[in-house]
């Protein structure tokens, strides 16, 4: 082996985007990490096979993109269809859609924290993989596991009561929603709020204690400068259902504000790489790849001026910490996720107390009048765009979908590189190294994680191969 020779570690499969991904790590001659790639190897094809469908079918078709976040796609799709119809939906319908959304935020974030990330935090990154999952969490911290199970269940119950069923509800439709909320259903959801609040606050305290005890590790875990994008209200407050787009730079300075979501193509472009099926969105005026930006809980809290609900706003003030205009470490996604659960619960309470929440005036009918429709929401994982082009009969001519995992693609690659450089050393492959690389991805809560076959574990097979093809070392899991 010459001094200039390099070696490549391939982690394949890492996990799935409703499918699979892999990571390649290139080592230099002395065994240090030189470069990494996070490859998404699964091709979905929704943008293509929806061409020719009637636009009103899109909510039900695109809901099947994912089993964890069908609600997000339903809402973004319904909003795109509303735009095609050209008729604003009625206030009760908007309230109900937002209530569904709060249920989705609660259950998705609870799943991410308690089931997927808490095992690392509570059992340790280097713990035996056999127990470093929700099963191990239940065995060693049953009290915490119960809280996680119940909090996620509460979010799912909101979805069920509001939308009619927990998975793939057919509730948001073009022009509104197809089910009103009964008084009994509203009251049942109100009953669950006190316990849900207690569970959310418990989780926040847990994470804050972890951050204090592991301060240096937390501050430097996949920490780097990036821009941020997300929806905000007209006054800059955190927003998940409506609002306009805000962009901030790595120091939190607002560089573009109140951009109507329908104009997203003026500010975002997408690049492709030959080694991944996932596109690479970037900010146009910065170019590719300098225009990397992050979305999702970390981004939303970095760029929001405030939160409209009191408890979550207090938590945001603490998170922003005065000394730091933005939180750069990817670890802070976890903390931001928990603050968003608190917001979702407060907003749920406001919605349930709204006098229009049980109204039966929930639908408008209209003929499609616009050739395009854009629907944008802040899904749990980040900004979600559904853009449809239709012909005069309402048939889909073209579809563009940008999902949160896509926005974060450049950032996830950067995170993998950062963590690999810190923890991968020399010629010895250790399981804890794989887990830390995995944990960097898990901060973003990508759709990759929801497709693993075993909770908390991504099947990994790593081979260290010499230039002559000889396998020098090998590690497998899952």
């Amino acid at each position, binding site marked *: 082996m010459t001094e200039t020779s390099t070696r490549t570690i391939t982690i394949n499969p890492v996990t799935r985007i409703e499918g699979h991904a892999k990571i390649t790590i290139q080592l230099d001659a002395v065994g240090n990490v030189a470069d990494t790639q996070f490859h998404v190897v699964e091709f979905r094809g929704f943008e293509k096979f929806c061409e020719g469908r009637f636009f009103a079918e899109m909510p039900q078709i695109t809901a099947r993109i994912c089993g964890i976040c069908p609600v997000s796609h339903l809402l973004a799709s319904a909003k795109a269809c509303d735009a095609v119809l050209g008729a604003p939906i009625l206030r009760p319908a908007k309230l109900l859609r937002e209530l569904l959304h709060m249920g989705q935020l609660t259950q998705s974030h609870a799943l991410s924290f308690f089931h997927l990330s808490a095992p690392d935090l509570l059992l340790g990154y280097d713990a035996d993989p056999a127990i470093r999952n929700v099963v191990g969490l239940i065995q060693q911290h049953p009290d915490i596991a119960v809280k996680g199970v119940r909090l996620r269940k509460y979010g799912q119950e909101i979805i069920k009561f509001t939308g009619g069923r927990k998975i793939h509800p057919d509730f948001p439709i073009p022009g509104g929603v197809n089910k009103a909320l009964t008084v009994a259903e509203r009251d049942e959801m109100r009953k*669950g709020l006190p316990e849900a609040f207690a569970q959310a606050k418990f989780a926040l305290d847990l994470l804050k204690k972890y951050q204090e005890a592991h301060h240096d590790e937390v501050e430097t875990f996949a920490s780097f400068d990036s821009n941020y994008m997300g929806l905000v209200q007209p006054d800059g407050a955190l927003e998940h259902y409506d609002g306009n787009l805000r962009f901030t730079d790595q120091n939190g300075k607002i560089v573009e504000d109140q951009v109507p979501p329908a104009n997203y193509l003026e500010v975002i472009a997408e690049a492709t790489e030959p080694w991944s099926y996932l596109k690479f969105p970037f900010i146009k005026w910065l170019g590719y790849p300098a225009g990397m930006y992050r979305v999702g809980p970390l981004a939303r809290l970095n760029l929001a001026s405030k939160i409209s609900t009191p408890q979550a706003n207090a938590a945001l003030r603490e998170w922003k910490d005065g000394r730091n205009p933005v939180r750069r470490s990817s670890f802070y996604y976890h903390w931001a996720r928990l603050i968003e659960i608190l917001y979702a619960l407060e907003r749920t309470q406001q919605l349930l107390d709204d006098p229009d929440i049980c109204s039966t005036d929930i639908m408008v009918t209209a003929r499609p009048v616009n050739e395009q429709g854009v629907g944008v929401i802040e899904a749990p994982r980040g900004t979600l765009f559904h853009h449809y082009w239709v012909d005069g009969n309402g048939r889909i001519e073209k579809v563009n979908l940008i999902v949160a995992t896509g926005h974060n693609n450049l950032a996830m690659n950067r995170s993998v590189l950062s963590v690999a450089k810190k923890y991968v050393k020399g010629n010895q492959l250790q399981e804890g190294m794989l887990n830390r690389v995995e944990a960097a991805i898990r901060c973003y809560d990508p759709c990759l994680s929801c497709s693993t076959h075993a909770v908390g574990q991504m099947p990994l097979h790593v081979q260290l191969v010499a230039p002559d093809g000889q396998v020098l070392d090998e590690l497998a899991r899952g």
Partner: protein
Amino acid sequence: MSGNSRQTAGADFLVIGYGNTLRSDDGVGAKVAAAVAELGLPGVVALVRHQLAPELAEPISEAHAVVFVDAAVDAATEVQMRQLEPADGAQLMAHAADPRTLLAFAKQLFGRCPPAWWLTIPVENLGFGEELSPLARRGYETALEKIRALAGCH
């Protein structure tokens, strides 16, 4: 709704059918549970799910008895009903989830695990679609008979 669903609280007999109804026979367990729900048998609660998840541990712990219904892709050619004991494992929220893990969760988290059975239905078609094959359809009918008989004993 404080972690004790109105729907399942203290069910005499809980039926949990799971599977993907868009993958033909894979959805037979879910369809059995849906049919049981339609029957409206006294004291029987049926839950239709895509997959087993930890949230089911609490209603399981509150039931007097529980039966899981799923498609079977092993060599069995007949509907099988096996009694289950709780067992530790990591197979949950997976394509091949093990209900014994869920029983262990129920015991560990909520202090109780009722008598439980796993009713598996042989299948032959797991492609895209919503219809059951003749084999799965026969198993579906047999499963309903067995559940009625078992529910009548509890």
